[in-house]
């Protein structure tokens, strides 16, 4: 049973467009949601994160929208650049002294120049 789901599996946008990546989760106790960006041959890099007390988090061109009632969140990448082409993972966790992240299956984003 997948606790964190992502869609679409792959997404292609043109340079300058806004890419929207979706994520949903099952466990209502999850309260921390980081997004990671992974390029081929590298480890995942923390991109932006949000806690469940907020409904929006913005960092430059990256914005997370969070809907706690529906257990959904989305990552919006505005003014997409070819360098944004990567796989994006949504993860979830219950914040505590120890740290266990549940990852989604990822969205492979391609930004066409």
């Amino acid at each position, binding site marked *: 049973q997948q606790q964190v789901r992502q869609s679409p599996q792959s997404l292609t946008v043109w340079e300058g467009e806004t890419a929207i990546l979706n994520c949903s989760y099952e466990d209502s106790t999850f309260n921390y949601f980081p997004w990671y960006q*992974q390029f081929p041959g590298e480890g*995942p890099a923390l991109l932006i994160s949000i806690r469940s007390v907020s409904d929006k988090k913005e960092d430059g061109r990256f914005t997370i929208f969070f809907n706690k009632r529906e257990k959904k969140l989305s990552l919006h990448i505005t003014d997409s650049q070819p360098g944004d082409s990567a796989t994006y993972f949504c993860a979830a966790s219950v914040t505590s002294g*120890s740290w266990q992240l549940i990852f989604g299956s990822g969205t492979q984003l391609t930004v066409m120049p």
Partner: protein
Amino acid sequence: GALVYQYPRRTICKSGTSMRMECQAVGFQATSVAWYRQSPQKTFELIALSTVNSAIKYEQNFTQEKFPISHPNLSFSSMTVLNAYLEDRGLYLCGASDWGEEQYFGPGTRLTVL
């Protein structure tokens, strides 16, 4: 900034042999270290979670007898894959965090088993 290094980046071992991989955190205290395996399809499997001053917690399908982990201080952890076989291949990732803060990942150790 917070950085995580992993060694080696790539390794090849013969079936039935063992290999050790290391993880080093720089710029923050790695009070928790999680070891994951990422498949070629990019899915993540949590192997175990190690928190300083607590017992290492292994996930289902992973055991200490197969994947012994050491977490001796707040900057270093190592994991060994014992008796590696084809199904053990993948990218092994170390994710480190400081008491519930963001988890930072290293570049991974890619294990190939011949």
